[in-house]
């Protein structure tokens, strides 16, 4: 019995498939970065739509967020990879994975942005309006720069949880870390070693990231620093500051 358990801890055999797992980890990171980049932009668009004065835009964006949040991410991935082809829309596994996760994360990230924008004190809005700023100008120069400070730590946390959630796209046969592990395990049955190594890989990438996020969190609390602001540039005066 003991011998069998001791044998489990023999990781020498893993040399064979370790390169495959590391390569798969790179795919996982790529997925994370792609999804996050899309989500950051699209999430902001959704948030601005939800805060817009146009009723139509508000309805569309609210419906989007509610539907996405009200259904499992796994189902959304299935939909994109298995259902859409019935309508003649086909994606490569990687693309389907990115789209599925991006659709999902955009909804959640938009809520983070929205909370951040709404957290900017009302007085800031009124002061901008009293100075004759248009809504667009006020958003760009006054509201968003302040909202960003509030929003960076929660965005960082979503980034980390996204990295782990990329394992979901194994379901649409993207050869990321989880799926690769399953394939290898199906051939050599070394479940313990394979999935332990995968766990170590996930953790050793997530943990430093979470340390970095808490560093950012602390920095954001310090307050506004003395540094020249780049926000005061306008097309008319580019280079004057």
């Amino acid at each position: 019995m003991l011998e069998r358990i001791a044998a489990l801890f023999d990781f020498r055999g893993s040399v064979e498939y370790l390169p495959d797992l590391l390569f798969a980890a790179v795919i996982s990171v790529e997925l994370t970065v792609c999804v996050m980049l899309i989500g950051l932009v699209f999430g902001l668009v959704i948030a601005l739509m939800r805060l817009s004065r146009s009723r139509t835009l508000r309805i569309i964006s609210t419906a989007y967020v509610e539907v996405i949040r009200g259904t499992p991410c796994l189902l959304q991935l299935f939909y994109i990879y298995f259902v859409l082809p019935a309508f003649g829309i086909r994606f490569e596994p990687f693309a389907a994975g990115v789209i599925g996760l991006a659709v999902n994360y955009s909804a959640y990230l938009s809520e983070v942005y929205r909370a951040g924008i709404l957290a900017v004190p009302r007085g800031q809005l009124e002061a901008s309006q009293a100075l004759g700023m248009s809504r667009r100008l006020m958003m760009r120069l006054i509201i968003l720069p302040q909202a960003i400070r509030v929003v960076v730590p929660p965005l960082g946390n979503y980034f980390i949880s996204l990295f782990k959630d990329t394992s979901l796209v194994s379901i649409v046969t993207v050869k990321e870390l989880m799926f690769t592990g399953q394939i290898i395990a199906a051939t050599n049955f070394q479940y313990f070693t394979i999935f332990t190594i995968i766990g170590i890989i996930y953790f050793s990438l997530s943990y430093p990231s979470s340390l970095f996020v808490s560093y950012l969190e602390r920095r954001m609390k310090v307050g506004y620093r003395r540094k020249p602001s780049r926000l005061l540039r306008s097309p008319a005066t580019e280079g004057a500051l």
Partner: protein
Amino acid sequence: MIRLEKVCKSFGHITVLRDVSLEVQKGEVVCVIGPSGAGKSTMLRCINHLEALDSGTIYIEGKPVYRYIRDGRLVVDREKRIEQIRSQVGMVFQAFNLFPHFTALENIMVSPLHVLREPMAELRPRALALMAKVGLSDKVGAYPHELSGGQQQRVAIARALAMRPKCMLFDEVTSALDPELVGDVLRVMRALATDGMTMIVVTHEMGFAREVADRVVFMADGVIVEEGPPGEIFSRPKNERTSQFLRSVLQRREELGEGTLPSALGT
């Protein structure tokens, strides 16, 4: 310069302004006093459309603005025009509302730069001059959180002035300040009045009102109860509400040991 005609405003079923009519001439300094909840701030906020009117009309430089009846039809101004009017009406708030992510100088420059599209080469010296005018030449690069309340409020005044407004609205600008900082802000406002700026000042500083105002308006319960030259309002109020209010304000001063009636009214 500014004329309010039968302005009404309510929040839900609470009426805040009831048929308020007021006319302010160019270069005139009007101080608005009255108990809290009288509608003083709301009236001010209606003038630059931070609050929308329910009925009545506001005229700025003789022209009706925001929403008005023309040829028997209701006209609602476009966003662009409202912004344009606002850019000519400076406003200073009780809570300063400086932009925390900009330095003092940037706070002053941001709006002229982006709204008026004034070239930096002209704007920067002008902004520096404004900082000097409010006595803060040494604080140009400071962020709002590095400034005292009085300094922040003076930056806020300079920020409003940077738009070259035709008139200025002051909404209880000294109420949030420590007593010893009030003087610096009032000094800046006094200088502004001397320069001939048209000003509507909602204030609890009776001394300032008495000394600087051309006219004092007493408001209570959403209506203008009484208005007239400061000497008249403070010494011989016609309305019982006015004298009652002034008595209670001055009594409080005395309790605080801030002098007797004449000195509290004076400076």
